[in-house]
């Protein structure tokens, strides 16, 4: 499989998981929430300062249809993740030797 095709498939899978499959996820409390409730410290949880975010709790505010609201939030999340992480890892990566010092090669050209 070509690298390009592999990356395209991985992105498509991520979009489908976040945008479509997420609707069918279990709505039950997760392990920590469940334990917190049983042990009696769930009430100490406070609303996050981001609780008013238009995408809070993976729902797009203003959209009533849960499938569309959740699906859109998932797709937006995937796009934000892809852009942020791609930029970060491009900056961090080891450069090929000839473009390791782009500033210097510019100087030598000048």
């Amino acid at each position, binding site marked *: 499989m070509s690298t390009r095709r592999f990356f395209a498939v991985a992105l498509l899978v991520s979009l489908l998981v976040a945008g479509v499959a997420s609707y069918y996820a*279990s709505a039950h409390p997760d*392990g920590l929430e*469940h334990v917190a409730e049983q042990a009696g410290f769930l009430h100490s*949880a406070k609303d996050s300062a*981001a609780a008013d975010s238009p995408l809070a709790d993976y729902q797009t505010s203003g959209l009533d249809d849960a499938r569309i609201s959740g699906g859109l939030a998932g797709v937006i*999340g995937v796009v934000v993740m892809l852009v942020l992480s791609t930029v970060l*890892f491009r900056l961090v990566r080891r450069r090929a030797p000839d473009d390791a010092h782009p500033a210097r090669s510019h100087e030598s050209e000048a």
Partner: protein
Amino acid sequence: MHVPDGFLDAPTSVATGVVAAAAVALSLRGSRRELDDRTAPMAGLVATFVFAAQMINFPVGAGTSGHLMGGALAAVLVGPWTAVLCLSVVLVVQSLLMADGGITALGTNIVLIGIVTVAVGWVVFVALRRVLPKRVGMVAPAAAVGALVSVPAAALVFTALFSVGGNVPVDLDAVLVAMLGWHTVIGLGEAVVTGLVVASVVAARPDLVHGARPLLAERELELRTGITT
């Protein structure tokens, strides 16, 4: 296991924030060795996939659910330093955009989900790779076992943090037993998802799997020796 604001007191949250910041700084240095022109886009996709997969809560019984954490998965696919960065980006986006996991608890969540699961998952994976047959087919099972162990390990560290800085005095032994019990079951789900995803990538492009590279290099050597004899 995203910790909300309020579970842990301010000093504990500041301490985990400092640990998280130091780990991210170290990982920025360490990941240079793991990332090149080919693996940088792979790392971006792994972070994106982990974000998507974390939206899928699977039921684990008694009205409880769990979802992939992805630390072991990311470590095996792109290397442990890069994995810490992947999970940190996921947790920042979840916390700020989706209000999933508190903002003052961001350091705590990076420690639990971004550092503990990556470190434990990777150490278990490397130990298994050493003792298992030196075949690429062993990468996915080893990753699955690393994933299985990583989840209760994070639950253990949460309980330790809660014993130091929990805002509500509760029976800690009961919390420990319940956290380990539930997260062992969730760990089974983590193992299944991690095993399947790693197996798929190994089948399609083994060269893109960080944890498979020593085995691929060995296979190459064997092939070459085979030709010369």
